[in-house]
């Protein structure tokens, strides 16, 4: 694969790995500034209450405390969340987000006041001197209950904050045509990102009066949110992103940046704020828990006829991205299958739990657990091989999805599933109390933001006088190789070595806006922008060389800092036609034709969704793949041991093969965690598993070797035909494991994570039957 490229698709080596292994990389918490204050946040210890009294007097009086802020000190404390495409059926969105809780708290951990002091000890002591009195309000924690008319209201008069539906074909007729029907309910957990690096940043006011915030940001565009809160022009707030110690969506929503901006603005001093691990639990959004009810029908020869899904997600106490996540769930609800008759109804509901928002997989993986469990059970009912059954129904290029979007890229699902299964190798033997089973799951996941958001990304590329290149792109680097991809793309196009290209990124006032590192869009969007800019620069060079040697530019080739005649490069008669890149650049410079380009890549644009019915394309494209697992289940205790694991995706075209595998392995690990152990448990809104010894993520002992199979259809919308892999890598993991458990013990787990206790209970239920 990738023979025609020098760099693209190879195991090209990381751009920052050497500094990372040397301990040289500076992360957000490593920054200090002269005269810096240290900040802490005072948070609610009630899930639903009125604030009857808030007294900051004693805290302010403490020696060494410089700044204590509450809601009344915030220039624009409230913002009304208006989600694009919000339906009218549930009314206009009435949820108001507040920077600091003014009169009422709606979840445990909500920010109420900010303290900045000369050192952290003083800041912590000041927190203890803040006096508060609450009056408890009725609270609601179950999203199913919260939908009911009499439920306590979190905001406004309706707890349902979004509703989406899909209608395709005739659902009644579809089920009437079915010979077998599987109808089941499923639940998924509130997952915590558990990136190892805490949210952290520093802020300062510079000599031009600009509020600078340097923090671990997946979305540097939050400078606008900070400006809005402070009542400043956008141009007066600058976000400088840092190298990020893990994001996964956890550093996508607002974390420390507004607090940092406020405290620097109010105190006039540099400020540092780092969340404690406790705050990472209490204060930051989680993956929304879902209730899913699925009914799927097929004919006896294995053709799907109908699918009906009802989805309810817990938005928590404030509206962040849960309505968008719900759109993803709704559109992805069918799985990567062609189903003639589809009905999906989805709600996102406010509760007094912690707010929910972005997490890798973003609505796609919750439904994948349900639709792939359904597919597995249907195959069983039909006594059909689960892969053969799926093959009869896989979406193919040219097929239409349930929301009438045509698949325009390859969908290598049969290949991915077969290869994932084959990669497991020979099957292990069980024993009396330890049963071995295998399962797999297929999935699809969009890459790129929803097309009605009219996403764009910019990149600037140049050639220096010596022929080296600088790339500027706003894209943050989360460790997925975001900068590295841009370097590889530009080096490939300009015929340079990797270390001749330098990437400057993630500064809202220096780098061209590239958009977020979310939605599996970084390579697709910023990679395309860098490609366009590099192609423009190459064109400038080749045009100039063409004029210099009198050969048409199409016949010229740029490689190793030389411009060659494309054919017979080595021939002696052409040696005279070879120019050094530096010569061409000098010639350009002499004529004022600077080899630089600022390029914009635009995703396909569609009209905003204007009703709750989704019946138009929502995404640019999808990534397809499969994961397979072999498990051993201890039938006496319910414990699961993963024996083997494989993951296979068509990623279109690898940029750096190591990085593709890294995404697939890491995604699988997080998805396995979601399937087997991860659960951010709240009881009456009080978090119980906030630290990393109660909230369990997979350790090296919980995972087997993960085999990766990389397929390259070159049919994607990204540079060189690449598709995105960041999120798709996580989606099929949980159902693969759950299907394997089903195979091992004959019992299905409908509520992930499949803890030993849940499996034990399911086994007991089966024995008692």
């Amino acid at each position, binding site marked *: 694969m990738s023979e025609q490229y020098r760099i693209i698709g190879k195991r090209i080596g990381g751009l920052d790995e050497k500094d990372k292994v040397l301990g040289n990389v500076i992360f957000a918490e490593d920054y200090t500034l002269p005269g810096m204050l240290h900040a802490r946040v005072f948070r609610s210890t009630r899930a639903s209450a009125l604030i009857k009294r808030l007294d900051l007097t004693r805290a302010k009086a403490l020696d060494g405390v410089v700044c204590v802020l509450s809601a009344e000190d915030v220039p624009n404390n409230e913002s009304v969340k208006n989600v694009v495409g919000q339906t009218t059926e549930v009314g206009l969105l009435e949820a108001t987000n507040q920077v600091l809780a003014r009169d009422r708290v709606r979840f445990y951990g909500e920010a109420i006041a900010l303290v900045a002091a000369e050192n952290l*000890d003083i800041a912590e002591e000041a927190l203890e001197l803040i006096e508060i009195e609450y009056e408890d309000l009725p609270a609601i924690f179950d999203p199913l209950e919260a939908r009911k008319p009499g439920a306590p209201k979190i905001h406004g008069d309706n707890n349902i904050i979004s509703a989406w539906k899909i209608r395709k074909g005739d659902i009644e007729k579809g089920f009437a045509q079915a010979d077998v029907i599987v109808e089941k309910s499923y639940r998924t957990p509130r997952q915590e990102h558990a990136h190892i690096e805490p949210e952290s940043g520093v802020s300062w006011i510079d000599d031009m009066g600009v509020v600078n915030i340097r923090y671990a940001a997946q979305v540097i565009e939050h400078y606008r949110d900070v400006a809005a809160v402070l009542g400043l022009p956008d141009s007066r707030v600058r976000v400088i992103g840092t190298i990020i110690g893990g994001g996964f969506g956890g550093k996508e929503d607002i974390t420390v940046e507004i607090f940092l901006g406020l405290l620097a603005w109010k105190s006039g001093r540099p400020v540092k704020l780092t969340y404690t691990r406790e705050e990472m639990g209490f204060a930051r959004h989680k993956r929304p828990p879902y209730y899913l009810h699925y009914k799927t029908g097929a004919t006896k020869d294995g053709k799907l006829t109908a699918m009906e899904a009802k989805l309810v997600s817990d938005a928590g106490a404030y509206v962040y991205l849960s309505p968008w996540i719900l759109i993803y769930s709704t559109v992805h609800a069918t799985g990567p299958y062609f189903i003639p008759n589809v009905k999906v109804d989805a709600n996102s509901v406010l509760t007094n739990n912690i707010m929910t928002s972005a997490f890798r997989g973003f609505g796609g993986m919750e439904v994948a657990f349900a639709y792939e469990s359904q597919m597995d059970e249907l195959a069983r009912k039909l006594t059909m091989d689960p892969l053969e059954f799926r093959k009869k129904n896989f979406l193919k290029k040219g097929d239409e999805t349930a929301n009438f979007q045509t698949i325009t890229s390859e969908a290598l699902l049969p290949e991915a599933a077969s290869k994932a299964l084959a990669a497991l190798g020979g099957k292990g033997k069980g024993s009396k109390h330890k049963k071995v089973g295998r399962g797999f799951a297929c999935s699809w996941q969009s890459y790129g933001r929803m097309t009605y958001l009219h996403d764009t990304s910019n990149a600037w590329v140049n050639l220096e006088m010596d022929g080296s290149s600088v790339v500027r792109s706003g894209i943050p680097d989360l460790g997925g190789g975001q900068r590295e991809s841009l370097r590889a793309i530009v080096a490939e196009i300009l015929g340079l070595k990797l270390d001749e290209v330098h990437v400057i990124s993630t500064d809202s006032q220096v780098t061209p806006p590239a958009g977020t590192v979310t939605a599996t869009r970084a390579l697709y969007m910023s990679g395309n922008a860098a490609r366009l800019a590099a192609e423009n620069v190459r064109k400038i060079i080749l045009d100039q060389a063409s004029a210099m040697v009198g050969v048409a530019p199409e016949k010229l080739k740029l490689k190793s800092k030389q411009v060659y005649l494309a054919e017979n490069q080595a021939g002696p008669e052409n040696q005279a036609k070879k120019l050094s890149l530096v010569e061409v650049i000098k010639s350009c410079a002499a004529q004022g034709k600077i080899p630089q380009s600022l390029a914009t890549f635009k995703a396909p644009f569609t009209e905003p969704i204007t009703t709750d019915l989704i019946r138009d394309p929502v995404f640019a494209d999808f990534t397809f793949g499969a994961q397979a697992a072999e498990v051993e289940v201890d039938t006496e205790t319910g414990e699961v041991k993963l024996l083997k694991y494989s993951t296979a995706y068509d990623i279109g075209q690898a940029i750096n093969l190591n990085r593709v595998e890294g995404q697939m392995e890491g995604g699988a690990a997080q998805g396995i965690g979601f399937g087997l152990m991860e659960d951010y448990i709240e009881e009456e809104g009080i978090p119980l598993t906030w630290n990393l010894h*109660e909230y369990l993520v997979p350790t090296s002992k919980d995972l087997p070797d993960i085999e990766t199979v990389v397929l390259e259809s070159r049919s994607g919308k990204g540079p060189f035909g690449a598709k995105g892999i960041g999120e798709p890598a996580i989606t099929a993991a949980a159902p693969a494991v759950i299907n394997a458990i089903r195979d091992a013990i004959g019992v299905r787990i409908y509520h992930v994570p499949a803890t030993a206790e849940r499996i034990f209970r399911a086994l007991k239920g089966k024995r008692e039957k």
Partner: protein
Amino acid sequence: MKNFKYFRPKNLDELLAIKNELKEEARLLAGGSNLLVYIKEGSLKSGTLVDIGSLAALKGIREKDGYLEIGAAETIIDIMASPVVSEKLPFLRESLRVFANPLIRNISTVAGNIAEGSPIADTAPLLLVLNSEVVAASITGRRNIPIDDFFISLGKTEIKANEVIITIRIPIPETGRGKFVKLGLRKGTSCSVVSVAVWLIANGRGVEDIRIALGGVAPLPLRAVKTEALFRGKILNEHNIGELALEVTNEITPITDVRGGAAYRSEVSAALLSKAVRECLGMEE
């Protein structure tokens, strides 16, 4: 405001003197794993941190008078690496392999593990089935506390405010085999949901003597003496092991918490006990 002092006693007398003077306010720190968490979380705000980590008097792993004596400041990793332990009580070494993780094993001690009276201390069931003794010292002298008397109630042990654990004494068993099984919520580090230790002295499949201890199923780590009595004298097979093990559910009073439900803890205790007994008999696959 946090207000801590630090003190490193040069010898046992200094340690006992400061413990006598400050009582609970003298916070002993060998590895420090729990204590430092309390300080970070703010639940502990003051006291004197008494560093016993390098106190020679609390070091040493030796065989003496038929006992394995482990100094209170010996880390889990040093116990596992000890040739004496490997030779005289490999059961202990094997069982400690599931203690926390390699990093924590490098700093934690057995004494620290049991000192808080936690029902899920992983070493407690081991010490219980081995009929161990905890040697406590104060300025007035030493006393040997049988492990059966050591745990008093949730979070409370027999150690008085002026006392210090100095040694763990484990009689070296002449016969028998042991097995420790721990059920956690993941394979790497995790708190026990339930743990079961068994020491079995068998003649073929006939039970001459058995000691059973459990963690995570009562306010204290406990010995399941009634179940032991039922097992004694029986000829075991796969079937009756499971039946006899069920008795253990009558001896425990598990609670429901975030790691597991009471009913599960109860039922899985019997399953883990069966497993441990089978393993002692070499029956486990």
